[in-house]
Protein backbone atom coordinates (compact mmCIF):
# COMPACT_ATOMS: atom_id res chain seq x y z
CA UNK A 1 0.00 0.00 0.00
CA UNK A 2 2.69 2.46 1.01
CA UNK A 3 4.51 1.98 -2.27
CA UNK A 4 1.37 2.64 -4.32
CA UNK A 5 0.35 5.90 -2.60
CA UNK A 6 3.26 8.14 -3.73
CA UNK A 7 2.57 7.12 -7.30
CA UNK A 8 -0.98 8.38 -7.01
CA UNK A 9 0.19 11.61 -5.41
CA UNK A 10 2.36 12.09 -8.46
CA UNK A 11 -0.24 11.00 -10.98
CA UNK A 12 -3.20 13.01 -9.66
CA UNK A 13 -1.84 16.50 -10.53
CA UNK A 14 -0.99 15.15 -13.95
CA UNK A 15 -4.54 13.94 -14.41
CA UNK A 16 -5.96 17.28 -13.24
CA UNK A 17 -3.59 19.14 -15.55
CA UNK A 18 -4.72 17.04 -18.50
CA UNK A 19 -8.32 17.71 -17.63
CA UNK A 20 -7.62 21.44 -17.44
CA UNK A 21 -6.00 21.38 -20.88
CA UNK A 22 -9.33 20.31 -22.36
CA UNK A 23 -10.89 23.60 -21.28
CA UNK A 24 -8.04 25.91 -22.18
CA UNK A 25 -9.14 28.72 -24.48
CA UNK A 26 -7.38 29.16 -27.81
CA UNK A 27 -4.34 31.34 -27.20
CA UNK A 28 -3.89 34.44 -29.32
CA UNK A 29 -1.23 34.12 -31.99
CA UNK A 30 1.82 36.34 -31.68
CA UNK A 31 3.47 37.77 -34.77
CA UNK A 32 1.29 35.74 -37.09
CA UNK A 33 -0.45 36.85 -40.23
CA UNK A 34 -3.19 39.41 -39.64
CA UNK A 35 -6.30 37.96 -41.19
CA UNK A 36 -8.11 40.32 -43.54
CA UNK A 37 -11.60 41.37 -42.51
CA UNK A 38 -13.22 40.96 -45.91
CA UNK A 39 -11.85 38.84 -48.72
CA UNK A 40 -13.09 39.79 -52.17
CA UNK A 41 -13.68 37.01 -54.71
CA UNK A 42 -12.05 37.43 -58.07
CA UNK A 43 -14.11 38.71 -60.97
CA UNK A 44 -14.07 37.23 -64.46
CA UNK A 45 -10.71 36.93 -66.20
CA UNK A 46 -12.16 37.76 -69.64
CA UNK A 47 -10.02 40.30 -71.49
CA UNK A 48 -6.99 39.91 -69.25
CA UNK A 49 -3.75 39.16 -71.07
CA UNK A 50 -1.10 36.85 -69.65
CA UNK A 51 2.51 38.03 -69.27
CA UNK A 52 3.52 34.74 -70.91
CA UNK A 53 2.14 36.05 -74.22
CA UNK A 54 4.50 39.04 -73.93
CA UNK A 55 3.89 42.74 -74.53
CA UNK A 56 2.93 43.57 -70.94
CA UNK A 57 4.76 46.24 -68.97
CA UNK A 58 5.19 46.22 -65.20
CA UNK A 59 3.24 49.08 -63.66
CA UNK A 60 5.69 49.53 -60.80
CA UNK A 61 8.99 48.04 -59.65
CA UNK A 62 8.67 44.37 -58.69
CA UNK A 63 7.87 43.81 -55.00
CA UNK A 64 10.56 41.73 -53.29
CA UNK A 65 9.51 39.19 -50.64
CA UNK A 66 11.72 37.41 -48.16
CA UNK A 67 11.92 33.67 -47.50
CA UNK A 68 8.42 32.17 -47.38
CA UNK A 69 6.53 35.19 -46.07
CA UNK A 70 3.41 36.49 -47.74
CA UNK A 71 2.43 39.49 -45.63
CA UNK A 72 3.03 42.99 -46.97
CA UNK A 73 5.65 45.18 -45.33
CA UNK A 74 5.87 48.95 -45.12
CA UNK A 75 8.34 48.95 -48.02
CA UNK A 76 5.79 47.14 -50.21
CA UNK A 77 3.08 49.64 -49.34
CA UNK A 78 5.44 52.52 -50.06
CA UNK A 79 6.25 51.05 -53.49
CA UNK A 80 2.56 50.67 -54.25
CA UNK A 81 1.60 54.21 -53.16
CA UNK A 82 2.25 55.98 -56.52
CA UNK A 83 0.32 53.27 -58.35
CA UNK A 84 -2.64 53.73 -56.00
CA UNK A 85 -2.50 57.53 -56.31
CA UNK A 86 -2.50 57.41 -60.13
CA UNK A 87 -5.16 54.75 -60.50
CA UNK A 88 -8.26 56.97 -60.37
CA UNK A 89 -7.12 59.00 -63.43
CA UNK A 90 -7.35 56.32 -66.12
CA UNK A 91 -8.61 53.38 -64.05
CA UNK A 92 -6.29 50.82 -65.67
CA UNK A 93 -6.60 47.09 -65.04
CA UNK A 94 -3.75 45.21 -63.40
CA UNK A 95 -2.64 41.60 -63.40
CA UNK A 96 -0.74 40.74 -60.22
CA UNK A 97 1.64 37.83 -60.84
CA UNK A 98 3.54 36.04 -58.05
CA UNK A 99 6.84 34.21 -58.55
CA UNK A 100 9.24 32.19 -56.36
CA UNK A 101 12.83 31.03 -56.72
CA UNK A 102 13.51 27.32 -57.42
CA UNK A 103 14.32 24.99 -54.53
CA UNK A 104 10.90 25.06 -52.87
CA UNK A 105 8.47 22.17 -53.32
CA UNK A 106 6.73 22.94 -56.63
CA UNK A 107 3.12 22.98 -55.50
CA UNK A 108 3.88 24.98 -52.38
CA UNK A 109 5.72 27.52 -54.57
CA UNK A 110 2.61 27.97 -56.72
CA UNK A 111 0.39 28.42 -53.71
CA UNK A 112 2.82 30.81 -52.02
CA UNK A 113 3.19 32.99 -55.11
CA UNK A 114 -0.60 33.09 -55.56
CA UNK A 115 -1.06 33.97 -51.89
CA UNK A 116 1.44 36.84 -52.20
CA UNK A 117 -0.36 38.16 -55.26
CA UNK A 118 -3.65 37.97 -53.32
CA UNK A 119 -2.07 39.89 -50.43
CA UNK A 120 -1.06 42.67 -52.83
CA UNK A 121 -4.54 42.63 -54.37
CA UNK A 122 -6.14 42.87 -50.92
CA UNK A 123 -4.03 45.93 -50.10
CA UNK A 124 -4.88 47.59 -53.43
CA UNK A 125 -8.61 46.99 -52.88
CA UNK A 126 -8.42 48.38 -49.35
CA UNK A 127 -6.65 51.44 -50.82
CA UNK A 128 -9.53 52.15 -53.15
CA UNK A 129 -8.83 50.29 -56.41
CA UNK A 130 -11.93 48.52 -57.73
CA UNK A 131 -11.74 44.74 -57.25
CA UNK A 132 -12.99 44.05 -60.80
CA UNK A 133 -9.86 45.72 -62.21
CA UNK A 134 -7.50 43.32 -60.45
CA UNK A 135 -6.61 39.73 -61.31
CA UNK A 136 -4.04 37.49 -59.65
CA UNK A 137 -1.96 34.55 -60.81
CA UNK A 138 0.71 32.43 -59.11
CA UNK A 139 3.39 30.94 -61.34
CA UNK A 140 5.72 29.53 -58.68
CA UNK A 141 8.95 28.93 -60.57
CA UNK A 142 7.30 27.40 -63.63
CA UNK A 143 7.95 30.54 -65.68
CA UNK A 144 10.56 33.34 -65.38
CA UNK A 145 11.40 35.42 -63.39
CA UNK A 146 12.32 32.72 -60.87
CA UNK A 147 12.83 34.91 -57.81
CA UNK A 148 10.86 36.05 -54.76
CA UNK A 149 8.89 38.81 -56.50
CA UNK A 150 5.35 39.94 -57.23
CA UNK A 151 5.10 41.79 -60.55
CA UNK A 152 2.14 44.05 -61.34
CA UNK A 153 1.41 44.14 -65.08
CA UNK A 154 -0.71 46.90 -66.54
CA UNK A 155 -3.26 45.53 -69.01
CA UNK A 156 -3.41 47.14 -72.45
Amino acid at each position, binding site marked *: *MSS*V*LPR*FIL*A*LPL*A*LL*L*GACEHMPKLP*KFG*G*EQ*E*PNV*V*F*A*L*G*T*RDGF*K*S*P*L*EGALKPACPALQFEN*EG*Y*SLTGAHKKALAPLIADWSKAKPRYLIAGHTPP*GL*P*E*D*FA*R*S*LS*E*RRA*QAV*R*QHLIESGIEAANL*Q*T*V*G*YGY*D*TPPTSNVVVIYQQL
Partner: protein
Amino acid sequence: MSAFRLSTILCLFAVLLAPAKADVLPSWLRFWKGGSAAKPAKIEPKRVSIGAFAGGTGTSAKQALVAELTTTREFQITEEKPDFIITGSSVGGRITGKVANAAGKELLDRTYAAPGLDENAKALADDVILTITGKPGLATSRIVFVSDKSGAKQVYLSDPDGKEVLQVTHHSHGAVSPTLNADGTAVAYTSYSSGFPVVQWMDLSQGWERTVTDTPGSSFGAAFSPDGQRLALVMSFLGNPEVFVTDLTTSTAACISDTTGAPSSPAWHPDGKQVIFADDRGDGPRLYVAEVPATNQTEAQLLRWRTGYSFCTDPEFSPDGHSVAFTARISGELAVVVKGWPNGPAKVIQAGGASHPSWSPNGRSLCYAQHGNLYVHSLSSGLRRLVLEKHGQISEPRWMK
Protein backbone atom coordinates in the same frame (compact mmCIF):
# COMPACT_ATOMS: atom_id res chain seq x y z
CA MET B 1 -11.28 2.92 5.64
CA SER B 2 -8.00 3.66 3.91
CA ALA B 3 -8.80 0.99 1.34
CA PHE B 4 -12.09 2.77 0.60
CA ARG B 5 -10.30 6.11 0.09
CA LEU B 6 -7.75 4.52 -2.14
CA SER B 7 -10.43 3.03 -4.34
CA THR B 8 -12.12 6.45 -4.60
CA ILE B 9 -8.89 8.01 -5.81
CA LEU B 10 -8.39 5.11 -8.13
CA CYS B 11 -11.85 5.62 -9.66
CA LEU B 12 -11.23 9.36 -10.04
CA PHE B 13 -7.94 8.67 -11.68
CA ALA B 14 -9.46 6.15 -14.05
CA VAL B 15 -12.29 8.50 -15.01
CA LEU B 16 -9.90 11.39 -15.65
CA LEU B 17 -7.32 9.62 -17.68
CA ALA B 18 -8.44 6.43 -19.26
CA PRO B 19 -11.78 6.63 -21.05
CA ALA B 20 -12.22 7.78 -24.64
CA LYS B 21 -8.95 9.67 -24.67
CA ALA B 22 -6.92 6.87 -26.14
CA ASP B 23 -7.13 8.25 -29.66
CA VAL B 24 -6.55 11.86 -28.67
CA LEU B 25 -3.52 11.57 -26.43
CA PRO B 26 -0.11 11.73 -28.09
CA SER B 27 1.70 8.44 -28.43
CA TRP B 28 4.30 9.26 -25.76
CA LEU B 29 1.57 9.50 -23.12
CA ARG B 30 0.03 6.15 -23.96
CA PHE B 31 2.16 4.28 -21.48
CA TRP B 32 -0.50 1.71 -20.61
CA LYS B 33 -0.81 0.38 -24.13
CA GLY B 34 2.68 -1.01 -24.57
CA GLY B 35 3.58 0.18 -28.03
CA SER B 36 1.69 0.04 -31.29
CA ALA B 37 0.32 -3.01 -33.07
CA ALA B 38 2.48 -6.09 -33.16
CA LYS B 39 4.89 -6.30 -36.06
CA PRO B 40 3.84 -8.76 -38.74
CA ALA B 41 5.81 -11.97 -38.69
CA LYS B 42 8.28 -12.43 -41.49
CA ILE B 43 6.57 -14.36 -44.24
CA GLU B 44 8.44 -16.89 -46.31
CA PRO B 45 8.13 -16.15 -50.03
CA LYS B 46 5.71 -18.41 -51.88
CA ARG B 47 7.25 -21.19 -53.96
CA VAL B 48 6.20 -20.99 -57.57
CA SER B 49 7.03 -23.30 -60.44
CA ILE B 50 6.75 -22.24 -64.06
CA GLY B 51 6.01 -25.10 -66.46
CA ALA B 52 6.88 -25.21 -70.14
CA PHE B 53 4.82 -22.94 -72.40
CA ALA B 54 3.36 -24.58 -75.51
CA GLY B 55 3.15 -22.93 -78.93
CA GLY B 56 5.53 -21.23 -81.38
CA THR B 57 6.61 -18.32 -79.14
CA GLY B 58 6.19 -20.38 -75.97
CA THR B 59 9.90 -20.54 -75.10
CA SER B 60 10.44 -16.79 -75.34
CA ALA B 61 7.17 -16.13 -73.49
CA LYS B 62 8.33 -18.31 -70.60
CA GLN B 63 11.73 -16.60 -70.65
CA ALA B 64 10.12 -13.15 -70.48
CA LEU B 65 7.81 -14.22 -67.66
CA VAL B 66 10.63 -15.78 -65.63
CA ALA B 67 12.76 -12.64 -66.10
CA GLU B 68 9.85 -10.42 -65.04
CA LEU B 69 8.98 -12.48 -61.96
CA THR B 70 12.64 -12.81 -60.96
CA THR B 71 13.19 -9.05 -60.88
CA THR B 72 10.10 -8.48 -58.74
CA ARG B 73 11.44 -10.90 -56.06
CA GLU B 74 7.87 -11.69 -55.02
CA PHE B 75 8.31 -15.46 -55.18
CA GLN B 76 10.87 -18.14 -55.01
CA ILE B 77 10.88 -19.74 -58.47
CA THR B 78 11.56 -23.41 -57.97
CA GLU B 79 10.47 -26.83 -59.12
CA GLU B 80 10.49 -28.31 -55.60
CA LYS B 81 7.26 -28.46 -53.63
CA PRO B 82 5.63 -25.48 -55.35
CA ASP B 83 2.67 -23.67 -53.71
CA PHE B 84 1.53 -22.46 -57.11
CA ILE B 85 2.03 -23.77 -60.64
CA ILE B 86 2.05 -21.54 -63.70
CA THR B 87 1.42 -23.06 -67.11
CA GLY B 88 0.51 -21.53 -70.43
CA SER B 89 0.92 -21.25 -74.13
CA SER B 90 1.94 -18.58 -76.59
CA VAL B 91 1.30 -18.28 -80.33
CA GLY B 92 2.48 -15.31 -82.39
CA GLY B 93 3.13 -13.11 -79.37
CA ARG B 94 -0.26 -13.76 -77.71
CA ILE B 95 0.10 -15.37 -74.31
CA THR B 96 -2.38 -17.52 -72.41
CA GLY B 97 -1.42 -17.97 -68.78
CA LYS B 98 -2.87 -20.23 -66.09
CA VAL B 99 -2.19 -20.30 -62.35
CA ALA B 100 -3.18 -23.25 -60.18
CA ASN B 101 -2.50 -23.87 -56.50
CA ALA B 102 -0.86 -26.99 -55.10
CA ALA B 103 -4.22 -28.75 -54.85
CA GLY B 104 -4.75 -28.21 -58.58
CA LYS B 105 -7.45 -25.57 -58.25
CA GLU B 106 -7.30 -23.07 -61.13
CA LEU B 107 -7.01 -19.45 -59.91
CA LEU B 108 -6.27 -17.59 -63.13
CA ASP B 109 -6.83 -18.32 -66.81
CA ARG B 110 -6.39 -15.37 -69.10
CA THR B 111 -5.23 -14.57 -72.63
CA TYR B 112 -3.18 -11.46 -73.39
CA ALA B 113 -3.36 -10.23 -76.98
CA ALA B 114 -1.53 -6.90 -76.92
CA PRO B 115 0.77 -6.31 -79.95
CA GLY B 116 4.06 -7.09 -78.14
CA LEU B 117 5.16 -10.32 -76.45
CA ASP B 118 7.02 -8.43 -73.68
CA GLU B 119 3.95 -6.33 -72.98
CA ASN B 120 1.83 -9.49 -72.66
CA ALA B 121 4.42 -11.13 -70.41
CA LYS B 122 4.41 -8.05 -68.12
CA ALA B 123 0.61 -8.06 -67.95
CA LEU B 124 0.62 -11.78 -67.12
CA ALA B 125 3.33 -11.28 -64.46
CA ASP B 126 1.25 -8.54 -62.80
CA ASP B 127 -1.86 -10.74 -62.81
CA VAL B 128 0.12 -13.67 -61.38
CA ILE B 129 1.40 -11.42 -58.57
CA LEU B 130 -2.08 -10.06 -57.88
CA THR B 131 -3.58 -13.58 -57.86
CA ILE B 132 -0.99 -15.06 -55.51
CA THR B 133 -0.12 -12.15 -53.19
CA GLY B 134 -3.30 -10.05 -53.42
CA LYS B 135 -1.20 -6.95 -54.09
CA PRO B 136 -0.84 -5.39 -57.54
CA GLY B 137 2.32 -5.96 -59.56
CA LEU B 138 4.31 -3.00 -60.80
CA ALA B 139 5.31 -4.07 -64.32
CA THR B 140 2.27 -2.48 -65.99
CA SER B 141 2.06 0.49 -63.58
CA ARG B 142 3.05 3.96 -64.73
CA ILE B 143 4.84 6.96 -63.23
CA VAL B 144 3.90 10.43 -64.38
CA PHE B 145 6.35 13.31 -63.95
CA VAL B 146 7.35 16.78 -65.16
CA SER B 147 10.50 17.47 -67.16
CA ASP B 148 11.87 20.57 -68.88
CA LYS B 149 13.67 18.47 -71.50
CA SER B 150 11.93 20.18 -74.43
CA GLY B 151 12.36 23.71 -73.02
CA ALA B 152 9.09 24.39 -71.20
CA LYS B 153 7.98 22.04 -68.42
CA GLN B 154 5.85 19.23 -69.86
CA VAL B 155 4.18 16.09 -68.49
CA TYR B 156 5.74 12.69 -69.26
CA LEU B 157 4.68 9.12 -68.61
CA SER B 158 7.12 6.33 -67.82
CA ASP B 159 7.13 2.66 -66.81
CA PRO B 160 8.78 1.98 -63.43
CA ASP B 161 12.01 0.86 -65.17
CA GLY B 162 12.38 4.16 -67.02
CA LYS B 163 12.70 2.31 -70.33
CA GLU B 164 9.60 3.56 -72.08
CA VAL B 165 9.09 7.30 -71.68
CA LEU B 166 6.23 9.07 -73.43
CA GLN B 167 5.61 12.81 -73.63
CA VAL B 168 1.96 13.41 -72.72
CA THR B 169 1.52 17.16 -73.17
CA HIS B 170 2.81 19.53 -75.84
CA HIS B 171 1.35 22.77 -74.45
CA SER B 172 2.68 26.21 -75.20
CA HIS B 173 4.16 27.60 -71.94
CA GLY B 174 4.08 24.05 -70.51
CA ALA B 175 2.07 21.81 -68.20
CA VAL B 176 2.90 20.84 -64.60
CA SER B 177 1.53 19.17 -61.43
CA PRO B 178 0.33 15.87 -62.99
CA THR B 179 -1.71 13.09 -61.38
CA LEU B 180 -2.73 9.66 -62.72
CA ASN B 181 -6.00 7.94 -61.93
CA ALA B 182 -6.08 4.48 -60.33
CA ASP B 183 -5.96 2.43 -63.53
CA GLY B 184 -3.60 4.75 -65.39
CA THR B 185 -6.07 5.65 -68.13
CA ALA B 186 -6.40 9.35 -67.37
CA VAL B 187 -3.99 12.08 -66.34
CA ALA B 188 -4.87 15.49 -64.90
CA TYR B 189 -2.44 18.41 -64.85
CA THR B 190 -2.11 22.17 -64.70
CA SER B 191 -1.76 23.66 -68.18
CA TYR B 192 -0.31 27.08 -69.01
CA SER B 193 -1.47 27.02 -72.65
CA SER B 194 -3.88 29.93 -72.05
CA GLY B 195 -1.15 31.84 -70.20
CA PHE B 196 -2.87 31.17 -66.87
CA PRO B 197 -2.77 28.00 -64.74
CA VAL B 198 -5.82 25.89 -65.63
CA VAL B 199 -6.45 22.27 -64.59
CA GLN B 200 -7.18 19.90 -67.47
CA TRP B 201 -7.52 16.16 -67.75
CA MET B 202 -6.70 13.86 -70.60
CA ASP B 203 -8.07 10.44 -71.46
CA LEU B 204 -4.91 8.55 -72.38
CA SER B 205 -6.64 5.78 -74.34
CA GLN B 206 -8.60 8.17 -76.55
CA GLY B 207 -6.41 11.23 -76.38
CA TRP B 208 -8.97 13.95 -75.73
CA GLU B 209 -8.46 16.77 -73.23
CA ARG B 210 -11.03 18.49 -71.09
CA THR B 211 -10.73 21.63 -68.98
CA VAL B 212 -11.78 21.05 -65.37
CA THR B 213 -11.39 24.58 -64.01
CA ASP B 214 -11.59 27.77 -65.96
CA THR B 215 -11.74 29.93 -62.86
CA PRO B 216 -9.96 33.25 -62.36
CA GLY B 217 -6.78 33.17 -60.28
CA SER B 218 -4.70 29.99 -60.19
CA SER B 219 -5.66 26.34 -60.05
CA PHE B 220 -3.12 23.57 -59.51
CA GLY B 221 -2.25 20.51 -57.41
CA ALA B 222 -4.91 18.19 -58.83
CA ALA B 223 -5.19 14.65 -57.37
CA PHE B 224 -7.55 11.94 -58.60
CA SER B 225 -9.76 10.31 -55.97
CA PRO B 226 -9.38 6.50 -55.61
CA ASP B 227 -12.58 5.96 -57.62
CA GLY B 228 -11.40 8.37 -60.33
CA GLN B 229 -14.67 10.34 -60.22
CA ARG B 230 -13.41 13.34 -58.28
CA LEU B 231 -10.41 15.64 -58.21
CA ALA B 232 -8.98 17.41 -55.18
CA LEU B 233 -7.25 20.61 -56.24
CA VAL B 234 -6.36 24.13 -55.16
CA MET B 235 -8.27 27.08 -56.65
CA SER B 236 -8.03 30.75 -55.71
CA PHE B 237 -11.10 32.39 -57.26
CA LEU B 238 -12.56 33.11 -53.81
CA GLY B 239 -9.85 35.68 -53.16
CA ASN B 240 -7.43 33.30 -51.46
CA PRO B 241 -6.25 29.82 -52.36
CA GLU B 242 -8.41 26.98 -50.96
CA VAL B 243 -8.56 23.20 -51.44
CA PHE B 244 -11.63 22.04 -53.34
CA VAL B 245 -13.05 18.66 -54.24
CA THR B 246 -14.68 18.70 -57.64
CA ASP B 247 -16.90 16.02 -59.11
CA LEU B 248 -15.86 15.31 -62.69
CA THR B 249 -19.27 14.03 -63.75
CA THR B 250 -21.32 16.95 -62.42
CA SER B 251 -18.58 19.64 -62.50
CA THR B 252 -19.48 20.88 -59.02
CA ALA B 253 -16.90 21.84 -56.42
CA ALA B 254 -16.89 21.94 -52.61
CA CYS B 255 -14.36 23.81 -50.51
CA ILE B 256 -12.83 21.54 -47.84
CA SER B 257 -10.09 23.77 -46.42
CA ASP B 258 -10.87 26.71 -44.20
CA THR B 259 -7.79 28.84 -44.45
CA THR B 260 -6.50 32.29 -45.20
CA GLY B 261 -3.03 30.86 -45.80
CA ALA B 262 -1.40 29.11 -48.72
CA PRO B 263 -2.70 25.51 -49.08
CA SER B 264 -1.09 23.14 -51.58
CA SER B 265 -0.67 19.55 -52.78
CA PRO B 266 -3.83 17.69 -51.67
CA ALA B 267 -3.82 13.86 -51.72
CA TRP B 268 -6.54 11.29 -50.98
CA HIS B 269 -6.82 8.62 -48.33
CA PRO B 270 -7.43 5.27 -50.09
CA ASP B 271 -10.94 5.15 -48.54
CA GLY B 272 -11.82 8.31 -50.51
CA LYS B 273 -13.21 10.05 -47.42
CA GLN B 274 -10.24 12.16 -46.32
CA VAL B 275 -7.88 14.51 -48.08
CA ILE B 276 -4.48 15.47 -46.66
CA PHE B 277 -2.81 18.70 -47.76
CA ALA B 278 -0.11 21.19 -46.79
CA ASP B 279 -1.16 24.62 -45.57
CA ASP B 280 1.02 27.61 -44.73
CA ARG B 281 -0.88 29.77 -42.26
CA GLY B 282 2.00 32.18 -41.76
CA ASP B 283 4.62 29.98 -40.11
CA GLY B 284 5.59 27.50 -42.81
CA PRO B 285 3.58 24.72 -44.44
CA ARG B 286 2.13 22.11 -42.05
CA LEU B 287 -0.06 19.12 -42.80
CA TYR B 288 -3.85 19.19 -42.39
CA VAL B 289 -6.45 16.50 -42.95
CA ALA B 290 -9.95 17.34 -44.10
CA GLU B 291 -12.96 15.08 -44.35
CA VAL B 292 -14.66 15.09 -47.70
CA PRO B 293 -18.30 15.91 -47.03
CA ALA B 294 -20.93 13.48 -48.31
CA THR B 295 -23.20 14.85 -51.01
CA ASN B 296 -26.09 15.89 -48.74
CA GLN B 297 -23.88 17.19 -45.96
CA THR B 298 -21.99 20.44 -45.59
CA GLU B 299 -20.20 20.00 -42.27
CA ALA B 300 -16.77 18.43 -42.42
CA GLN B 301 -13.92 18.07 -39.98
CA LEU B 302 -10.57 19.71 -40.53
CA LEU B 303 -7.66 18.88 -38.28
CA ARG B 304 -3.98 19.54 -38.10
CA TRP B 305 -1.72 16.51 -38.21
CA ARG B 306 1.45 16.98 -36.21
CA THR B 307 4.51 15.47 -37.84
CA GLY B 308 7.33 16.96 -35.76
CA TYR B 309 8.64 18.97 -38.72
CA SER B 310 7.95 22.66 -39.25
CA PHE B 311 8.05 22.55 -43.04
CA CYS B 312 6.03 19.73 -44.66
CA THR B 313 4.55 19.53 -48.14
CA ASP B 314 3.48 17.01 -50.80
CA PRO B 315 1.87 14.48 -48.42
CA GLU B 316 0.60 11.19 -49.84
CA PHE B 317 -1.16 8.29 -48.10
CA SER B 318 0.23 4.79 -48.63
CA PRO B 319 -2.09 2.39 -50.53
CA ASP B 320 -3.02 0.63 -47.24
CA GLY B 321 -3.70 3.98 -45.56
CA HIS B 322 -1.37 3.26 -42.61
CA SER B 323 1.45 5.69 -43.51
CA VAL B 324 1.98 9.09 -45.06
CA ALA B 325 5.01 10.06 -47.13
CA PHE B 326 5.82 13.75 -47.39
CA THR B 327 8.55 16.26 -48.17
CA ALA B 328 10.05 17.95 -45.12
CA ARG B 329 12.73 20.58 -44.89
CA ILE B 330 15.41 19.47 -42.45
CA SER B 331 18.18 21.99 -41.72
CA GLY B 332 17.65 23.82 -44.99
CA GLU B 333 17.47 20.77 -47.27
CA LEU B 334 14.44 18.93 -48.58
CA ALA B 335 14.03 15.32 -47.48
CA VAL B 336 11.53 12.51 -48.00
CA VAL B 337 9.94 11.34 -44.74
CA VAL B 338 7.47 8.52 -43.98
CA LYS B 339 5.33 8.64 -40.83
CA GLY B 340 2.71 6.22 -39.52
CA TRP B 341 -0.91 7.33 -39.79
CA PRO B 342 -2.53 8.47 -37.54
CA ASN B 343 0.27 7.80 -35.04
CA GLY B 344 3.68 6.39 -35.56
CA PRO B 345 7.34 7.19 -35.71
CA ALA B 346 8.67 9.40 -38.50
CA LYS B 347 11.53 8.01 -40.56
CA VAL B 348 13.69 9.96 -42.98
CA ILE B 349 13.86 7.87 -46.14
CA GLN B 350 16.17 10.10 -48.14
CA ALA B 351 17.69 13.47 -47.22
CA GLY B 352 19.80 15.79 -49.33
CA GLY B 353 17.27 17.39 -51.65
CA ALA B 354 14.89 14.46 -52.28
CA SER B 355 11.33 15.68 -52.72
CA HIS B 356 7.80 14.85 -53.85
CA PRO B 357 7.48 11.18 -52.77
CA SER B 358 4.82 8.94 -54.26
CA TRP B 359 3.92 5.37 -53.23
CA SER B 360 4.11 2.39 -55.53
CA PRO B 361 0.76 0.59 -56.03
CA ASN B 362 1.88 -2.26 -53.73
CA GLY B 363 3.01 0.19 -51.04
CA ARG B 364 6.52 -1.23 -50.77
CA SER B 365 8.46 1.46 -52.65
CA LEU B 366 8.51 5.21 -53.04
CA CYS B 367 9.46 7.18 -56.10
CA TYR B 368 10.82 10.69 -55.68
CA ALA B 369 12.85 13.36 -57.48
CA GLN B 370 16.34 14.32 -56.32
CA HIS B 371 18.64 16.76 -58.15
CA GLY B 372 16.47 16.43 -61.25
CA ASN B 373 16.68 12.62 -61.39
CA LEU B 374 13.95 10.07 -60.74
CA TYR B 375 14.53 7.38 -58.10
CA VAL B 376 12.60 4.36 -56.87
CA HIS B 377 13.37 3.54 -53.24
CA SER B 378 12.49 0.15 -51.76
CA LEU B 379 11.24 0.59 -48.18
CA SER B 380 11.93 -3.03 -47.15
CA SER B 381 15.53 -3.23 -48.33
CA GLY B 382 16.36 0.48 -48.06
CA LEU B 383 18.03 0.30 -51.47
CA ARG B 384 17.23 2.75 -54.19
CA ARG B 385 17.42 2.58 -57.95
CA LEU B 386 18.09 5.42 -60.39
CA VAL B 387 15.21 5.12 -62.84
CA LEU B 388 15.75 8.10 -65.07
CA GLU B 389 18.59 10.61 -65.41
CA LYS B 390 19.74 13.09 -68.06
CA HIS B 391 16.12 13.62 -69.03
CA GLY B 392 16.01 17.35 -68.39
CA GLN B 393 15.15 18.44 -64.86
CA ILE B 394 12.68 15.86 -63.51
CA SER B 395 10.21 16.94 -60.83
CA GLU B 396 6.81 16.06 -59.30
CA PRO B 397 6.74 12.30 -59.95
CA ARG B 398 3.54 10.45 -59.13
CA TRP B 399 2.95 6.73 -59.32
CA MET B 400 -0.49 5.49 -60.30
CA LYS B 401 -2.40 3.87 -57.47
